[in-house]
């Protein structure tokens, strides 16, 4: 009788532990941020690229329109991939693209824009990466779709055609 109870409880324990580990298989062990976030944009003030003017977030996101905040750097290879899409967006659609130049050299950033074109209405400087943290970013490129001072969508990594279509649908 005693042995029976022991055996059953051992089997139950095994099943229990198995289920826990089995469930754990589906969990990722890398950071996966949520993509749809409905949050207010962070308040900040930073200088613009190529000028010493300090500008605050209230002065940037004023109108009731869509903004795309794009974190980029000239040394970032995927940023080159998404650049034509950003150019297309800024030229043909009703959206204002704001750049946040992340840990870059000014000359390199300017060279990058001269070579590939400039889709940005304003370019903010983030020389030590602390501004990007206020946005909850952890790498480049990352983009945030903003409407009425709220972040409505977050894009991690370069914007590809699929995401481009997503943005088009939202801003229509």
């Amino acid at each position: 009788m005693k042995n029976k109870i022991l055996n059953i409880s051992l089997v139950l324990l095994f099943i229990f532990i198995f289920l826990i580990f089995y469930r754990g298989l589906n969990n990722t062990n890398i950071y996966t941020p949520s993509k749809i976030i409905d949050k207010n944009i962070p308040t900040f003030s930073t200088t613009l690229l190529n000028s010493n003017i300090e500008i605050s977030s209230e002065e940037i996101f004023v109108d009731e329109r869509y903004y795309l905040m794009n974190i980029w750097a000239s040394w970032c290879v995927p940023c080159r991939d998404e650049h034509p899409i950003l150019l297309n967006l800024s030229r043909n659609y009703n959206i204002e693209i704001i750049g946040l130049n992340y840990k870059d050299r000014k000359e390199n950033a300017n060279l990058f824009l001269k070579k590939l074109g400039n889709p940005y209405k304003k370019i903010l400087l983030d020389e030590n990466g602390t501004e990007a943290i206020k946005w909850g970013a952890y790498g480049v490129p990352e983009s945030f779709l903003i409407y009425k001072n709220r972040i409505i969508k977050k894009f991690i990594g370069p914007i590809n055609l699929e995401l481009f279509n997503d943005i088009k649908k939202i801003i229509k």
Partner: protein
Amino acid sequence: MKFLKLLSIFFFIFSFEILNAQDNDLENKITKNLRCLVCQGQSVYDSDSEFANSLKLVIKQKLNEGLNEKQIYNFLKDKYGEWILYDPKFGKNTYFLWLLPLFLFVIGGAIVFKRFIIKKN
């Protein structure tokens, strides 16, 4: 004279260290409790990645602004979610993690009690 010079140099070096020690202690404590999001298995303190270096700067800024440890954790939790903290809070997904050791301790205690104490009597 030489002795005096040496003494003043020593004094200068050590007084400088003491000034910074407290702030660095808290800063290190906080960064050790934060997970580096771009490098697996490392804390922000251990990592030398771009992200970790910027985060260390942010923490320094926040401490200078007068935020305490808990406020800094909350700030980062708001930005990056629970994942950035090494200390998981008691909740729906973590109750098992917190209660299992306690549960095993009670079972172990019961076995010890039954085996040794009751038998002795």
